[in-house]
């Protein structure tokens, strides 16, 4: 087992625990930068899609995993970001301006939905955000002279410094940059007072309040940041799908986002990335085995959503720490080899049982 010996409080403030970690992340970055030159177009496209989902996943992780609020309406935020970006581009606004505007405007929408739902939590909040999602979906359909209604419209080509970015590689790099930016913001907030306030609200509202945390302010902020990040993902998503139509932003997409957060592992940014990878890979996996499944299971309609639901339930039951938890256990196994045992990762619950009042 490796130990980090700390000699300075500054070491706890850094984004990376050690130079070793810094090295691995740098290597990963280099690999991701050269990947489009090595991989085929299909894989580059898939990775780009993964990055876009990961951006939204990080946003939702801040809300669900760190603040303890739930949202079943994040597809709507994705849609707001996508339409804002595309509509502004159609007006001739340059992409480097429409992208941040899409994020900021969606963030404001997030604050607007966060504010009235402050007193709700759990199921009630889920229902309220679900309703919000379907209202926004209806707006996309009916506001025809802006959104083009059911017919939709083709998203204009984005230009960055005169270079068109509508090809797969362009979208790949754009999404990678946005993902790194969003991760940086999220990690910064989480090591700042704001992130701690969110965790405090998640764990105990009453004592968060008596420590001086303004619940309304921090919950609204969490909604705004979460929605803003999802809006950025939406702006990229518009270019990824190239053609915007309202049916892309349905409840099923919101459920996919929630799946990212839960399967990835609540309360971890790495989990958001792993979850996004899972959600993007599962449909591909189904597509590969679909024809070989017995009894015509592969031809059943709704196979994909039901598998998402099944996985979500199984993860909540058997692996509450999600893929991130599995990764940590896997790492611990190698670090402690050959001393790792089944019980090593188990939380010590004996104290909790002897407690008088819980």
């Amino acid at each position, binding site marked *: 087992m490796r130990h980090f010996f700390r000699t300075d409080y*500054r070491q706890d403030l850094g984004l990376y625990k050690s130079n070793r970690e810094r090295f691995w992340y740098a290597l990963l970055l280099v690999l991701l930068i050269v990947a489009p030159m090595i991989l085929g177009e299909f894989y580059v496209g898939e990775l780009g899609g993964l990055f876009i989902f990961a951006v939204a996943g990080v946003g939702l992780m801040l809300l669900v995993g760190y603040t303890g609020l739930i949202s079943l309406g994040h597809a709507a935020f994705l849609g707001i970001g996508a339409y804002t970006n595309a509509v502004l581009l159609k007006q001739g606004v340059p992409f480097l301006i429409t992208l941040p505007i899409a994020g900021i405007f969606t963030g404001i929408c997030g604050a607007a939905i966060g504010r009235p739902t402050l007193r709700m939590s759990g199921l009630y909040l889920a229902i309220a955000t679900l309703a919000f999602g379907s209202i926004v979906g209806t707006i996309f359909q009916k506001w025809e002279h802006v959104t083009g209604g059911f017919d939709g419209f083709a998203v204009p080509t984005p230009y960055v410094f005169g270079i068109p970015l509508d090809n797969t590689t362009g979208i790949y790099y754009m999404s990678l940059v946005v993902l790194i930016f969003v991760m940086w913001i999220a990690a910064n907030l989480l090591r*700042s*007072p704001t992130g*701690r306030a969110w965790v*405090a609200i998640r764990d105990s509202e009453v004592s968060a*309040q*008596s*420590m001086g945390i303004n619940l309304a302010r921090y919950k609204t902020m969490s909604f705004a940041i979460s929605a803003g990040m999802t809006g950025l993902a939406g702006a990229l998503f518009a270019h990824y799908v190239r053609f915007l139509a309202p049916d892309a932003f349905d409840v099923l997409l919101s459920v996919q986002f929630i799946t990212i957060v839960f399967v990835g592992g609540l309360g971890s940014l790495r989990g958001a990335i792993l979850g996004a990878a899972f959600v993007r890979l599962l449909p591909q996996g189904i597509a590969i085995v679909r024809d070989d499944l017995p009894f015509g299971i592969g031809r059943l309609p709704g196979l994909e959503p039901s598998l998402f639901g099944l996985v979500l339930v199984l993860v909540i039951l058997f692996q509450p720490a999600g893929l991130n938890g599995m990764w940590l256990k896997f790492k611990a196994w190698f670090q402690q080899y050959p001393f790792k045992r089944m019980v090593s990762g188990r939380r010590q619950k004996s104290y909790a049982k002897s*407690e008088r009042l819980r």
Partner: protein
Amino acid sequence: MSMFQADDISVRFGGIRAVDSVSFDVQEGEVFCIIGPNGAGKTTIFNLISRIYSTTSGRLVFNGQEFTHTPPDRIAGMGIARTFQNIELFPNATLLQNLLIGRHCHHKVGFLSQMAFLPSVRREELHHREKVEDVIAFLGLQRYRDSLIANLPYGVRKVVELGRALCTEPKLLLLDEPSSGLNVEETEGMGFWIEDIKKDLGITVIMVEHDMALVNQVSDRVMALNYGKVIAMGSPSEVQSHPEVIKAYLGGDLEEAA
């Protein structure tokens, strides 16, 4: 001039008067103890002071400043910190994070500088870390610094909660049953800490407590409550020998009770 003053405070929940015209004042530097049978309204008084409940009538004054209608999240900033009877820590955060949350009311950096983690944020974080480490050293919690609260034994959690309240740098500390769930030695230790808090840190303490040994050990004055009303106030021995208090704990004769 007393430091804290509760002036004729009452709170009603429907038809129940949980706290009924209670008045008391606390001098700077004393340990003031509230005792009474279950349901007497002791914790309710704490919830009124930390503004989790609103008073139906009456006034609350701290350092000459009325705070009867101050929002609950401003109380810590005024210099009043509290602990909870059933421990309200943040179980899925480390001890260090819990104590840092205690520093929340002293944070000054803006949201945008936090997003970019500017040098000003870094400086402030280091400053707060040092303050937190002082509390960790004071309470001897070094070896649990990076443990999740969920993995800590009950006795340690009780101390952590005390530490989190101390991290807000309070002038007035409200302790809700600091000894509940602790064994004899742990209770004794808690008593020494409360004395240290009073003598070394100069913090005024209001405490709800059932353990009479602890009450006798630390408190300067005691107030006894029953059914939301003050039945006795004075030194610990005066209150314990007061006939009303004995009746409240042991029961009076039947005719009087009816």
